[in-house]
């Protein structure tokens, strides 16, 4: 009887999804959608390139569902821990999948999840990861690609304006040309061997001249998986993430998003770093060994970093990676940062225990400016931190956490429970305490602020599928900063709420409505009142996505409201219309957007995702009154060569005479950017 039900269900699933294949998104679109969901509320820059690389490499070397492991499934960032757990349990009970569409029979998976997984998984018998590697195969079947990108702003910025000094010499604040350029060379063999190099010059940096010759940033990476006795070997630039990220997380950290259950950091271990991000990586060598039920990772990093040093002291790291002016250039590579790290993890059936340690030595002394808010910031030349992490799985209950200490008497702990009482409802609770003194170089754990310190809070998130085609996601986060923060001259508190309803009535039509409310405390602007005041920001966003064959549209309307004790409420509004079209007879696809924004006050600014060229992910900030439109084009010249082109213009309608400030200032009310990318794949 059970078998019959299974066969009938399977038939229905295949029928319902089979027809959806024509309209299925490309892997690139899926990755963009996932990243957008993750970062929709993010106000900081998140390394999209690494996120994209991790997932796109899975499309070329798909996970074999019948032989996959929990660890492999954790690479799929859009799956919740509970979904992974259910999938592993399903495999255990049913031995193997007969078809990929059988995924919808797994608890907690709906059609949207299955569609998202399609590009990244396959059904097969063998596991390429265990095959022996032969050099001639590596050379013959390895995939090579070269990516060349050029960006330029049309309008002239103040930093490029030449002035003539008293001796008749002309110069401009920026040394270099206004062209951004990067070149990447990558090689990958079945996700077993990868190596490559990245070169980058930002706009304003000198490529060839008196100050500098060549690209401003060079990086090299190498990664080998399951080679000899090593599970992973990395050299050159790499990332390291362990446990919940209290000691090491140089990858994509867990944060608040509409994926309300995905707050558990994925233990990614050591991974290559091929991004153009110039700060968030290690440089050296590392390896992971497997010994019985345990794994040990050891790594060493020695890299130059930027800082403004005076008398062998510096007060902060300079993380922009920009070296355009004399003062920026003077900060380049002034500090040597050496790090040695280790992580060990042991699998004990239902539980997994880990231990992480890090020791960092700086060539100069870090001495933050003396101010009340950074009284507890780390200062010194050597830093040691260590932590222990755990994860216990008891059926539908998943308990996880990490506790860490630093040598300056800092203490941090994060602990959570993920529970799925039914297949249609899941809930996660997360409690964190990061003492003000816990200020380490590589911590990146779940938090409200960008630094993993001076914070305590409780997060509760849930996901419910009350009816067919409906999904409700919600979270509540209540937090407290026990010490002062920048811009907040007293201990403060805050609350953050999100409710999102997703409705997918048809395979080609989806919509969601998101309501978010956040209340924080900040310094009062009223002088002489030296106090902190409550500040609230709420937003409501409605999005509708429709596709039909090779045509798709997206509409978004968003309103936000800000309010504080001493100012009147303010309103911001933004709306856009997207149109994407893929030609049938020509390998050409285009994306168009026309957008309006009306956020007269900076507090009402909008962060809105827009489509971009390959490896680029834009979430520009909009405030003021104006419009923006872009035209994005991709053309596959042949099976080896693809071209991307994008032109975007922001035009303000609020009678401003200039855009931006300082050396980035542009005269007029228009800002136009063009981007071009060339990809050669072999």
């Amino acid at each position, binding site marked *: 009887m059970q078998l019959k039900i299974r066969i009938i269900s399977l038939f229905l699933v295949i029928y319902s999804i089979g027809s959806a294949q024509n309209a299925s998104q490309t892997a690139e679109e899926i990755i963009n959608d996932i990243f957008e969901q993750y970062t929709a509320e993010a106000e900081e820059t998140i390394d999209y390139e690494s996120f994209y690389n991790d997932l796109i490499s899975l499309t070329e070397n798909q996970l074999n569902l019948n032989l996959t492991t929990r660890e492999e499934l954790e690479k799929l960032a859009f799956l919740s821990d509970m979904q992974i757990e259910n999938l592993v349990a399903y495999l255990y009970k049913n031995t193997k999948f007969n078809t990929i569409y059988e995924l919808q029979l797994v608890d907690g998976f709906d059609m949207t999840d299955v569609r998202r997984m399609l590009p990244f998984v396959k059904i097969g018998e063998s596991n390429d990861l265990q095959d022996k590697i032969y050099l001639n195969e590596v050379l013959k079947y390895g995939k090579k690609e070269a990516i060349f990108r050029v960006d330029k702003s049309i309008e002239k910025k103040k930093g490029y304006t030449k002035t003539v000094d008293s001796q008749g010499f002309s110069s401009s604040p920026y040394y270099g040309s206004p062209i951004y350029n990067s070149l990447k060379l990558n090689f990958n063999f079945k996700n077993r061997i990868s190596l490559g190099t990245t070169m980058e010059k930002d706009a304003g940096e000198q490529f060839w001249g008196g100050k500098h010759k060549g690209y401003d940033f060079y990086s090299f990476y190498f990664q080998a998986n399951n080679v000899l006795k090593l599970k992973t070997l990395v050299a050159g630039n790499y990332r390291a993430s362990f446990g919940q990220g209290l000691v090491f997380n140089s990858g994509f950290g867990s944060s608040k998003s509409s994926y309300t259950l995905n707050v558990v950091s994925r233990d990614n271990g050591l991974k290559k770093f091929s991004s153009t991000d110039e700060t968030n990586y290690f440089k050296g060598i590392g390896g992971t060994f497997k010994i019985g039920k345990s794994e040990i990772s050891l790594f060493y990093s020695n890299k130059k970093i930027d800082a403004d040093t005076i008398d062998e002291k510096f007060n902060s790291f300079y993380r922009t990676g920009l070296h355009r002016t004399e003062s920026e250039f003077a900060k380049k590579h002034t500090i040597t940062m050496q790090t040695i790290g280790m992580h060990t993890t042991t699998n004990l059936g239902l539980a997994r225990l880990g231990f992480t340690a890090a020791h960092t030595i700086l060539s100069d002394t870090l001495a933050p400016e003396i101010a009340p808010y950074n009284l507890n910031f780390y200062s010194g030349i050597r830093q040691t931190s260590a932590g222990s992490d755990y994860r216990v799985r008891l059926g539908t209950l998943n308990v996880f956490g990490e506790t860490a200490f630093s040598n300056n008497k800092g203490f941090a702990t994060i602990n959570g429970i993920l529970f799925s009482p039914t297949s249609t409802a899941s809930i996660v609770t997360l409690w964190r305490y990061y003492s003000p003194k816990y200020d380490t170089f590589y911590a990146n754990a779940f938090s409200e602020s960008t630094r993993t310190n001076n914070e305590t809070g409780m997060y509760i998130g849930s996901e419910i599928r009350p009816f067919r085609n409906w999904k409700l996601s919600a979270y509540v986060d209540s937090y407290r900063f026990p010490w002062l923060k920048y811009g907040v001259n007293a201990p403060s508190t805050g609350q953050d709420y999100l409710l999102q309803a997703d409705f997918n009535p048809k395979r080609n039509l989806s*919509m969601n409505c998101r309501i978010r409310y956040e209340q924080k405390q900040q310094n009062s602007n009223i002088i002489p009142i030296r106090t902190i005041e409550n500040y609230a920001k709420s937003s409501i966003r409605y999005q509708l996505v429709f596709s039909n064959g090779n045509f798709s549209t997206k509409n978004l309307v968003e309103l936000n409201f800000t309010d504080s004790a001493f100012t009147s409420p303010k309103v911001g509004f933004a709306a856009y219309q997207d149109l994407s079209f893929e030609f049938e007879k020509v390998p050409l696809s285009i994306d168009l957007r026309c957008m309006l924004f009306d956020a007269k006050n900076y507090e009402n600014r909008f962060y809105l995702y827009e489509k971009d060229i390959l490896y680029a992910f834009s979430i520009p900030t909009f405030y003021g009154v104006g419009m923006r439109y872009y035209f994005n084009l991709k053309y596959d010249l042949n099976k080896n060569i693809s071209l991307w082109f994008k032109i975007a213009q922001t035009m303000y309608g609020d009678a401003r005479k200039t855009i931006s400030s300082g050396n980035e200032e542009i005269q007029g009310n228009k800002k136009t950017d063009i981007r071009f990318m060339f990809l050669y794949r072999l």
Partner: protein
Amino acid sequence: MFTVLFMRKIYLFLLFILTVFVLKSQTSDIIPSTFAVANASVADNKYYSAFQNPASGATLNGTQVGIQYENKYIINALAKKSIYFSTSTSLINIGIAATYSGYELHNELLTGISISKNFSNIFQLGVQYNYYSVYLAEANKRFASFLPQIGIIVSVSPAVKIGFSTFNPGQQKIQLKYSNKQIPTIFSLGTNWNVSENLDFLFQTDKNISGNYRVAGGFEYEVKEFLSLKIGAYQAEYLIPTVGIGLKLKTFDFYLNTELHPILGLTTFAAIKYTISKD
């Protein structure tokens, strides 16, 4: 049944979002009104709405010509006189329109040519190129500028369409010696819900980039094949009710719409459309 329920859900979402806007007026002096109730025509492709959404003419078959007269607040100097022509070809549809308003010392002329295409009834896309000129007595000169316009109408289901259009997205303005004359830059987003065979609900929001919002909505009910009634309202600085009537007599269509501003008074709009040929 499912379709109706589904449409209701979509509308609940849209209404919820759109009705919470700050409702204030926009001024789009140079753009003539249309046949649609409350001028909410951005997602309506039953008529060619010159200067509103150039995609509106994409589904029309045959050749039509029309004239319209809009008597704003019964002040002759504000009245707009318009004429338009639209024709369909196997490849694209073409529309030509002109509108004039003003008096001897200050008058404005807006002309435009549009090209629109229907893509398998899934979506319609249109672009229009307008030429705007204004005569200013104090300068004793006529000033002019070119204004592009782009629009799209998407059929998200057989009963629901979503329309978007933008007028003068390049924020062109007339450069005078000591100042600039603003030409409105307007974004419109709206829907058209075919509630039943003879009842349409139209809803639209407009934003003038240097002005405020306008929200409009209303019903168009086809009483008989030859007779239709329209009732709706739009929120500007004031809530302005509008009513209208449409008559179809063989090759001639007549439209009469009125609206009542609580302070400025009555505005009437009359139009005659003649269908020269049908494909």
